């Protein structure tokens, strides 16, 4: 019965611990009652990404509608060239983060900290780059309310930058002090999931800004 197989699939997805030790337990609950399982933090982060993605999807659909509106007053804008460099920086930070996590798994904690710090610094460079991009926009007298294209440029980049700011804060916190409830493995994994997501999200936004300007 297809419904049964769907349920079975869901059951297998639910929690990393099985209900071991429970005679009748068929794999269900994830909690072994020994406090909060580490998987919760991963789940929470993935869910947060779902919410953030929906937020940006709403903005993107608004952009699609506003741009394609009949008799639209849309005017193409010249994008600051530094955005390309910023994109490279953020993409590079994803790779340094992967390297950092690999080093942690191998047990070389000093190297992990080094590359973790590099990632955070690259994130800061990205933000500085975005601020320079905004200043260049101001210099060409393209402000938030100048025209729809510039409005969306600021909305997309500012919303993304705020998320990056949170990401940098997470990188700094995870890198600088021991987590209270999370293991280092979980903490770095949660931060990494978020950081890679921000990089992919930026590639999407950058593509939209370039293709749709």
């Amino acid at each position, binding site marked *: 019965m297809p419904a049964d197989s769907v*349920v079975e699939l869901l059951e297998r997805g639910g*929690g990393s611990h099985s209900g071991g030790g429970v005679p009748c337990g068929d794999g269900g609950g994830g909690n072994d*009652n020994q406090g909060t399982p580490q998987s919760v933090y991963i789940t929470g982060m993935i869910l947060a990404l779902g919410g953030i993605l929906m*937020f940006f*999807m709403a903005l993107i659909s*608004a952009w699609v509608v506003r741009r394609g*509106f009949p008799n639209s007053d849309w005017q193409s804008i010249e994008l600051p060239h530094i955005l390309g460099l910023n994109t490279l920086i953020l993409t590079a930070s994803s790779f340094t983060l992967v390297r950092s996590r690999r080093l942690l798994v191998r047990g070389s904690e000093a190297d992990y900290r080094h590359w973790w710090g590099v990632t955070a610094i690259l994130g800061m460079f990205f933000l500085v780059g975005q601020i320079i991009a905004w200043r260049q926009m101001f210099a060409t007298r393209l402000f938030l309310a100048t025209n729809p294209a510039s*409005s969306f440029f600021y909305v997309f980049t500012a919303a993304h930058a705020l998320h990056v700011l949170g990401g940098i804060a997470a990188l700094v916190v995870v890198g600088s002090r021991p987590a209270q409830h999370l293991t280092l493995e979980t903490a770095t994994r949660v931060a990494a999931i978020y950081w890679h997501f921000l990089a992919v999200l930026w590639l999407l936004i950058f593509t939209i800004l370039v293709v749709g300007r």
Partner: protein
Amino acid sequence: MSSPSRAAGDTIHAPVGALARFLRRYVFSTDHKIIGLQYFFLALLAVTVGMILSLLMRFHLVWPAAHLPFVAGGIMTPEQYLAVMTMHGTIMVFFVLTTAPQSAFGNYFLPLQIGAPDMAFPRLNMLSFWLILLAFVVMMAAFVVPGGAPISGWTAYTPLSGLGEIAGPGEGMGQSLWAFSILIFCVGSLLGSINFIATTIDMRAPGMTLMRMPLTVWAWFVTAILSLLAFAVLFAAGILLVLDRVAGTSFFMPAGLVVNGALQTNGGGSPLLWQHLFWFFGHPEVYIAILPGMGVVSHILANFSRKPVFGYRAMAFAICAIGFLGFLVWGHHMFVSGMNPYSGLTFSLLTVSIGVPSAVKTFNWLGTLWGGRIQFHSPMLFAIGFVSFFVTGGLSGIFLAQPAVDTTLHATYYVVAHFHIVMGVAAIFGILAATYYWFPKMFGRSMNESLGKIHFWLTFVGVYCIFMPMHFVGIAGGIRRYADSTGAAYLAGLQPLHRFMTIAALVTAAAQVIFFCNLFRSLRRGAPAAVNPWNGTTLEWIAGSPPPADNFSGRFPSVYRGPYEYSVPGAASDFWPQNIPPGLNPGESTEQRYAG
């Protein structure tokens, strides 16, 4: 309130001031139970405000020249009427129908029912509540700022909501506060929904498979998914609206708009874009309000019929199906927006398809009742009342799902009657059923049964007396949102019906005083409640009343069976709690059963 539980992780070091201890336990608590109660009492406050606003409107509709309390100047102006209507809708939808069924009861009972010591992220949970409370305070502030509350309705349609002060009183500071409040509410709801979903996925007790979860948990789980996806979209729309208002952008503001003789500078945007974004949130919001009620009703019908839920799996899948389809039907709120008729047809077909899982649920509720040994306690009466209102309101929804019919009825009281019955009253009956049902668990005391039954009958009859005639007013052409219809000759004939509805509303509101008296009196003087007063099967009934800080006094349950094993043939007792291992007859051992 009798010895409520202590905040989890609350270690008290002497000397700690009594005030500091109180604040930590009951105000800045991370205990899901305390947070659930905080949401509950916030919703009670909000529903009182919302109800007073509705009475002001009903009174004004019948006696437009009457002097009313809380109204500046005494006699309500049309603008004040719109402000009251806007705030009634906003407060009821956000701070009552979203807050009580999901945030209040979900917070309190989801961890208990899945055998967890707390929510997955307790501090995030506390933050959610404080954000929602802040949102409520900001929303209330709209009443007292210059210009008063906004007048653009709870849907805040642009361009009206985007223009600012020039569009009317309340559209200045009042509308800005409305927008900020909604943005804060969105963040609180998003954090809350992440917590609900993560808790359900990762914090279930051993043996608590998805198909052993109570239907309440299923409902809170799916509702949280809807919240996560829907509030994120409202948040985005709200940001764009605020930018249109304060930064001069034109996401939603159309070109060439002349307001009060002044040509507006921003333009080229799409007011319809707001409607699409708003209703993409707004329709799932309807299910955010009603799904938890469906879960509670399924739970209660089984308990008081002493029968398993009829078609448990179908019920769980129906909740999922309603949640999924809820994201595909937002356009049916916009049939009169001038949308392409083919789009209207698509939205119409998708809308009526929700009738299938809804019918599955209704059929299964009746199937659960059929042949049961029904016990007509107060929670059961309200649960049955829920089914009645869900059917009545759902049927008028089938008519409104036809674009041609909706075009005629959209601006009339027919729509008001429809959504009040199916979303408002049904959800409120779900909340009331849950309150009567879980009160002994939450406070360790019982509510008065006789008062509960009087409350039910007065409310049940009263609500039908308000909203059934309202359908006829709508069909006869009674226009909704009009502050005063006495000036239009063709509407004059409807005034007697309006008068009847207003009197019914006053009686129904008075009946709620009985509820409030019963509730607050029982908090202090209600008869002490047993651990499991209703002979329920799910895990909240093995915890103490009220449950201790860690819910199960360190004896965390394992789950061995489904959530609704009532009247199992051959059992010594007519119910098998979920934590009773196979081979142990529940009638023989109470030791195994209770942890509190």
